[in-house]
């Protein structure tokens, strides 16, 4: 009973804070801060996609950026060809999902073990990186959209209200859209995980063989989870392409793939709020570190602190060694032990003779 109450309180808290944040931020913050926060929200959706498939589905995907990048490129290419954003948006979700389903089919039905699954997904995103990177010439185009190779695709038209080409969404609108989408994604995943499907995928993560012996086909459940994760990452990619009106092959790169894993690891697997917190925190830190770039001279310390990848690497190592469960679950444990300690004291007072 207590647990259910805490759960509900948590949901209400997230809803209140999330909606307040969405409504108030554009009213109190400068436009450049709003712009910065928009990309945090977009990346948080990407973090949630991995939180689902890794944290709950137990599938360690090193190449979540493949679906993210596919979503961004699909939106860009479709937008240049179609000009109205409803279909490009849908395609940016459907195509990465279909790609995830195809890849997942071969991995799960081929009984690939966990380690190789990580290797394969990483390889896939790096192949995409190389493939797209080498499409710089004018001969590489899809319809009217030039792929641009390592230069990327600039000037991507923004999303518009469904059906109305002239009503493009402005920067502030993008913030509302991204934040709203993050909230919908979060609560949608909470619903999914509370459903029969969600509980079964957690069971499969806990003990795949047992789930199988009870009559569940783990391959089908993993494939469905992986596909949903691909769709979400593709959607985030679409929003990302909108945010900067630009996409380049680095979106498929190693550092992008690694970042997503770091967000989830630092924030905490097996929770949804953890990866969101990890994602926003780490991006904020990277930006803050990058902003302090020393303008020259031989100040070693300033240089070291301005080296974001170095600091992020240290944070990652620190978390793996010291906070292996991640931020949110560890805080939860502390809260719980405090709670239990007080609970036990009360129990002792009520039943002084109760044997341990």
């Amino acid at each position, binding site marked *: 009973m207590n647990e259910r109450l805490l759960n509900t309180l948590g949901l209400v808290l997230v809803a209140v804070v999330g909606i307040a944040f969405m409504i108030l931020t554009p009213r109190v913050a400068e436009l450049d801060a709003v712009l910065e926060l928009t990309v945090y929200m977009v990346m948080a959706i990407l973090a949630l996609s991995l939180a689902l498939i890794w944290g709950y589905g137990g599938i360690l995907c090193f190449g979540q950026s493949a679906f993210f990048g596919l979503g961004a490129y699909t939106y860009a290419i479709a937008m240049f060809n179609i000009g109205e954003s409803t279909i490009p948006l849908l395609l940016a979700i459907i195509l990465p999902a279909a790609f995830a389903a195809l890849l997942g089919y071969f991995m799960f039905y081929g009984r690939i073990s966990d380690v190789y699954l990580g290797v394969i997904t990483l390889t896939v995103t790096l192949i995409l990186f190389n493939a797209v990177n080498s499409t710089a010439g004018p001969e590489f185009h899809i319809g009217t959209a030039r792929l641009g190779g390592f230069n990327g695709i600039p000037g991507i038209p923004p999303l518009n209200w469904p059906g109305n080409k002239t009503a493009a969404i402005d920067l502030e609108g993008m913030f509302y859209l991204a934040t709203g989408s993050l909230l919908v994604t979060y609560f949608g995943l909470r619903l999914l995980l509370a459903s*029969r499907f969600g*509980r*079964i995928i*957690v*069971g499969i993560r*806990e*003990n795949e*063989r*047992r*789930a*199988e*012996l*009870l*009559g*569940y*086909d*783990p391959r089908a459940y993993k494939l469905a989870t992986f596909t949903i994760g691909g769709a979400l990452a593709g959607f985030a990619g679409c929003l990302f392409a909108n945010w900067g009106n630009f996409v380049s092959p680095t979106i498929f790169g190693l550092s992008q793939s690694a970042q997503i894993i770091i967000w989830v690891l630092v924030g905490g697997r097996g929770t949804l709020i953890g990866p969101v917190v990890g994602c926003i925190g780490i991006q904020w830190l990277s930006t803050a570190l990058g902003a302090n770039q020393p303008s020259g001279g031989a100040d070693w310390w300033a240089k070291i602190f301005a080296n974001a990848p170095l600091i992020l690497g240290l944070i990652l190592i620190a978390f793996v060694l010291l906070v292996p469960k991640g931020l949110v679950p560890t805080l939860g444990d502390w809260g719980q032990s405090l709670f239990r300690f007080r609970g036990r004291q009360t129990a002792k007072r009520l039943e002084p003779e109760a044997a341990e």
Partner: protein
Amino acid sequence: MMAPLLQTRDLSMHFGGVRAVRDVDFTLDEGELRCLIGPNGAGKSTFFKMLTGQLEPTHGQVLFRGRDISSAHAHEIARLGIGIKTQVPNVFDGLSVRENIWLAASRLHRGEKARAVVEEMLQRIGLTAAADRLVGQLAHGQRQWVELGLVLSTDPELILLDEPAAGMTHEEVLKTAELVREINRSKALIVVEHDMQFIRMIAKKVTVFNQGSVLVEDEVENIMRNPIVRDIYLGKQAAA
């Protein structure tokens, strides 16, 4: 005549050069309770793994109600109605007792009905008070009960029990024997067990495995008197 519930023909499993199970012909009737005994390495667990689709036989057939399930997937066999409690408790350690049973019950039931089935099963295995504890934190004996609860919740026609009494206290062994007899009123069972006392409490017919094949199959009292069985298995056990 009706087909037997379970039948194997020439069932064999080879691991490289090791022939763990060789040419086993085994028949189990509807509603029967059979015990399997034999020294360690006789192939009993491998036999169970082939019956449940965890291993695909090198050659030979497994027929369940006349249907060939030799190369069916584990989840398909489970859906046809064969449930197994493995030797080492195979449960969802990271989840609560209630969630464990719910996962099993919800293969057949939805919503309120599933919840009702779960509460009933918790009563039956005597773990209602521990329902919200993590299974990984329970004692070995209790985890055995959880696994039994999982198997029963999927309502199988045939239940395989691999050493159900291992690591249990004397009272727990008695309770398990009673439960096995109760289950047998409606379902067929195959029980692998070393504890001869336990076997005498539950079984009529016993199959003895040795070096991958069936050595002898007879009533429990005859098995106890069989000089070859005494020599290769029971004698060793008495000496130990």
